[in-house]
């Protein structure tokens, strides 16, 4: 079954349309990569899925239920977690304080810390450090740790690789693969396809606000070069 499904989703910022009828499915327990060039509508698609942006048309189904108009905090409380582009951490708080902010979801601080430090041991070493002074990779780990503290069933990741060195990106995607192996369904948005395709079960190519192609990473290799280099999508 699909944990997330978008059917004919259209979205706009003011009067400027950015999504033109997106159809996308994230089956339970799978990693789906949403790829595409800059400005294709990837982040907007994630924001619509997370309830942060209302679609102008179409339907969003989460866990088999139509959730158009649902407040994002309601979805988050039930297990849909978005880790936004730019990480979404509190840069002036320490790592531990950032994790403490996740206790609003009901889990105690010790539980949140256990979950975070078991997956990201490096954060334990840095727990008293101000988050803004962490390296980019560590900040991204903290953002993921904060997301995973809510015990999500569906994780939406936006541009995990942004501003990071390739070796750090590989390390992060290894962690994503571990999270997926633990049974969390993941929709990951990426501009740089090569690494994410290594962990994805399915991938969709988004071009000019439309899904140009959906398939396995292997099937999409040709489509990707066309999408990124400006060829016409099939």
């Amino acid at each position: 079954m699909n944990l997330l499904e978008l059917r004919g989703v259209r979205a706009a910022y003011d009067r400027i349309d950015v999504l033109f009828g997106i159809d996308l499915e994230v089956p339970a327990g799978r990693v789906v990569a949403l790829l595409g060039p800059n400005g294709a509508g990837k982040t907007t698609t994630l924001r619509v899925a997370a309830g942060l942006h209302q679609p102008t048309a179409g339907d969003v189904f989460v866990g088999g239920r139509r959730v158009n108009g649902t407040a994002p905090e309601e979805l988050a409380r039930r297990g849909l977690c978005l880790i936004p582009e730019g990480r979404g951490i509190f840069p002036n708080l320490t790592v531990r304080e950032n994790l403490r902010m996740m206790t609003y979801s009901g889990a105690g601080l010790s539980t949140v810390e256990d979950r975070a430090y078991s997956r990201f041991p490096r954060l334990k070493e840095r727990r008293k450090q101000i988050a803004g002074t962490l390296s980019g990779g560590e900040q991204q780990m903290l953002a993921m740790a904060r997301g995973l503290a809510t015990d999500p069933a569906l994780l939406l990741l936006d541009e995990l690789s942004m501003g990071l060195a390739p070796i750090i990106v590989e390390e992060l995607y290894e962690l994503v693969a571990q999270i997926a192996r633990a049974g969390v369904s993941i929709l990951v948005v990426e501009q740089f396809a090569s690494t994410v395709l290594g962990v994805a079960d399915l991938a969709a190519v988004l071009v000019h606000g439309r899904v140009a192609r959906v398939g396995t990473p292997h099937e999409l290799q040709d489509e990707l070069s066309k999408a990124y280099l400006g060829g016409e999508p099939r």
Partner: protein
Amino acid sequence: MMEHPERVEQFKHDIAEMQVKDPAAGRDRLATRGGAALMIIGVIVAIVGCLQSHNTSNPLSQTDAVIIALIGVAVTVAGGAVFLKGALSNFFRFWLARLIYEQKAQTDRIIDVADRP
């Protein structure tokens, strides 16, 4: 990749239990818009009442017009209150969350100090 049926079922159950609301019909937005509308209507009614009272020499008509103007002022004040309620509730929600966080952190600091040998 693997599927954890228990978590998936729990997630589906939680989503099914959720009350889906249309944000367009959200109370805060309604209060903001309704309050603004009431303020405008109130001001118009007050001005109309005032003008009516000036355009008649009949004391009874003047009294009626003054009452209408006062009702307009009351509607404006009520609209202002409703508008403020709608506009500030989001801010106060965030402020409350911050206060709760600070209070928890303060309590933990006190406990840490108290636990020291």
